[in-house]
C-alpha cells in the first residue's frame, strides 16, 4: 500500500450530510412560486361557480367557444403540417443557415402580440404588401374574417411547435435514419416510417403548446381580425369584453381558458413519457 493512502475507517458514514439550501435562494424561489400560483388560485376562488351553466350557455359565450375551438384546432393542424418540416430543416446536420433561421422562428415568441397583429395587417391588409393585390384581384380581404383569426394563431403558435420538435430531433440518434437509408429507404420513406414515429412525443408536446397558445391568443387577433361576435370574437376577446359589464362571466370563461389546456397537458404528460 502506498504510504499516502489513508485506510477507510470502519463504520464511518460515507455519504456527507446533505447541505441545507441557502435561505436567500429558498425565499426567492418561494416568492416566485407564489407569484405564479396566487393569481391562478384567485381566479378559481373568485369564479361564480353557481353561474357556470348559465354563463356557458349564453349566446355570446357559445359563439366564442365554438369559434375558439374551431380556429385553434385548425391553427394547430396548420402548425403541425408546416412546423414539423421546418423543424426538420433546422435540425439537419451540417445545415449552415440553421442559426439564422432559428432566430427568425423565435421572433414571434418575443414579439408583443399587438405588434404581430400590426405586422400581419401590413402584409394582408387591403393596402398591404400581399393583401393589396389580392383585394384588387378578387375583392376579398383576409383581415377581420375567421381566417384572419387562424392566421394570427398560427403566427404565434408555430414557434412553440418548431422549437419543441427541433429539440426532439436533436435528442434523436440520427444513425437510425442512416440505418434506414442503407436498408434502401428513400428520404421520404425514412422520414415517414422512422423519423416521424420517433418524433411523435415531441410533435404531440409541441402541438399541445401551440394549441394552448392559439387558444389564448388575444393581441394579434384583436388587431388583425377585429372583434366581431360570431366571426372573430374568440374566448379571450369575450373575456376582455365581459370584464366591463359582467365580471362574473369573465371569471368563468377565464377559468375555462386556464383549465382546459391544463387538463390536456396533465393527461398527455404521463402518456408521452411512459411510451417506449
Amino acid at each position, binding site marked *: 500500500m502506498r504510504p499516502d493512502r489513508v485506510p477507510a475507517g470502519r463504520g464511518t458514514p460515507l455519504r456527507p450530510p446533505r447541505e441545507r439550501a441557502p435561505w436567500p435562494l429558498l425565499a426567492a424561489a418561494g416568492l416566485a412560486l407564489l407569484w405564479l400560483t396566487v393569481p391562478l388560485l384567485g381566479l378559481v376562488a373568485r369564479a361564480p361557480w353557481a353561474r357556470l351553466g348559465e354563463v356557458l350557455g349564453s349566446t355570446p359565450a357559445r359563439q366564442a367557444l365554438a369559434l375558439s375551438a374551431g380556429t385553434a384546432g385548425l391553427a394547430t393542424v396548420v402548425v403541425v403540417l408546416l412546423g414539423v418540416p421546418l423543424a426538420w430543416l433546422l435540425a439537419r446536420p451540417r445545415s449552415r443557415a440553421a442559426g439564422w433561421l432559428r432566430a427568425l422562428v423565435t421572433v414571434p415568441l418575443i414579439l408583443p402580440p399587438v405588434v404581430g397583429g400590426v405586422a400581419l395587417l401590413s402584409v394582408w391588409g387591403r393596402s398591404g404588401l400581399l393583401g393589396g393585390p389580392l383585394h384588387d384581384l378578387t375583392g376579398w380581404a383576409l383581415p377581420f374574417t375567421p381566417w384572419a383569426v387562424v392566421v394570427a394563431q398560427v403566427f404565434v403558435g408555430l414557434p412553440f411547435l418548431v422549437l419543441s420538435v427541433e429539440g426532439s430531433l436533436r435528442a434523436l440518434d440520427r444513425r437510425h435514419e*442512416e440505418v434506414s*437509408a*442503407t436498408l*434502401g429507404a428513400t428520404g421520404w420513406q425514412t422520414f415517414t416510417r422512422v423519423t416521424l414515429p*420517433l418524433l411523435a412525443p415531441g410533435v404531440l408536446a409541441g402541438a399541445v403548446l401551440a394549441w394552448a397558445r392559439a387558444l389564448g391568443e388575444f393581441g394579434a387577433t384583436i388587431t388583425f381580425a377585429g372583434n366581431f361576435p360570431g366571426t372573430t370574437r374568440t374566448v379571450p376577446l369575450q373575456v376582455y369584453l365581459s370584464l366591463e359589464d359582467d365580471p362574473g362571466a369573465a371569471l368563468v370563461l377565464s377559468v375555462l381558458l386556464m383549465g382546459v389546456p391544463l387538463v390536456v397537458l396533465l393527461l398527455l404528460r404521463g402518456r408521452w413519457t411512459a411510451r*417506449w
Partner: protein
Amino acid sequence: MVSGLRASLRVPRPDFEVGVDLAADPGEVVALVGPNGAGKSTVLRALAGLEPAAGGSIRLDGRELATLPAHRRRVGLVFQDPLLFPHLSAVDNVAHGLRSQGLRRRAARERALALLRRWELGPLADRGGRQLSGGEAQRVALARALAPEPDLLLLDEPLSALDARTRLLTRGELAVRLGEFAGPSVLVTHDPVDAAVLADRVVVLERGRVVQVGTPAEVTRRPATDYVARLVGLNLLRGRAEGTTVRCPSGLVLTVAAPVQGPVHCVFRPSAVSVFASRPEGSPRNVLPGVLRGMAPHGDGVRLDVQLGTGDRVQAEVTPAAVAELRLGAASPLWLAVKASEIQVERAGGPI
C-alpha cells in the same frame, strides 16, 4: 466484370485525409483494424454513402457506387449499437428494408419472420427493441441488415458494445452468418480476436493510410508497425477440438480449459507464453519444444519468434532480463509453456 469490392477512397477529415484502397472478393471478410481515430469508421461510412468522399471510386460487382445515394447502394450496415427502430417490433425492424424495396407490408413481414425463424430468433419476433438483450438486439440488427440481400455487408465494431460472454456467443453466430453471406464483407474492429476469428484478410489503417495488408496469421507474424504488433500480436492456431484437447493439422496438440467440439481457433497472448531454457518440470500446462527464429524489441519487452517442433510459429513476450538470463541466440532450442486457462478458444465459422 470484376466481382467483389474494389474501392479507392479519399475522404477529408479535420486532421488528415483518409486515402484507402480496399478490395474484397465475394464471400471474403476483410477486417479493417487500427487505432482510434485512424479513419476506419470513416471508410465504412463512405462505402455506405453516409459520408461524402472527396474522390475515388467504389466498384461493387462492376457497379459504381460512389455516385449513388446511400439508399440505392444495396449495402447492409451494422453499427456498434443495434439501433433497432424503437417503435417497431423485431420482425417489423427486419421487414423495414424489404418494404423499402417495394414489398407489401404482409409479404415483407412474412419474409422477415421466416428469416428470424431460420436464425432461431422466431420467439423474439414480436418484441420491441427495449425488450431484447444486447446480444439479441444485435442479432436482430444483423438480420435486418441482411434481409434485403445486400451486395456488400459493412460491420462497424458490431461486438464491442456487448459484455464478454454475450460477445463470445454473438461472435460465433456472426462467424456463421458471414460464412453464409455470398458477398464481400468489411468489418471494422479494434479487437484482434475478432479480426483473427472472423476475417480472411486484415487491412491495418493508421492515420488514414493502409500500413499493412495480409491474412491474420501473416499480420500476426510480421507486424509492420509497433501499433500493429500490439494490436494483432496474438498467437493464433487453428485446429479441431475434442473436449479440452485441440489437434492442429501440423500435429500440434494443445490442452485448453473449456471443452468444445469441432473446428476452433486457439488464441493466446504472447505475454501468456513462458520461456524456459530446459524442459520445465511437473506442471499440467502445454509444454512445447521449439527453436528461436527471431527476436525484436517490443515496448518494454522483447518479442521472440519461436518455431515449434511441429512447424507452427508462436510469439512469446519476455523481459530483456530474461533474454540475457536464457542466453538466447540464433536457433537456440527452448521450451514454451502456456497455461490451458490462457488459451481462448473460439469456434471457427461454418456449421458446428
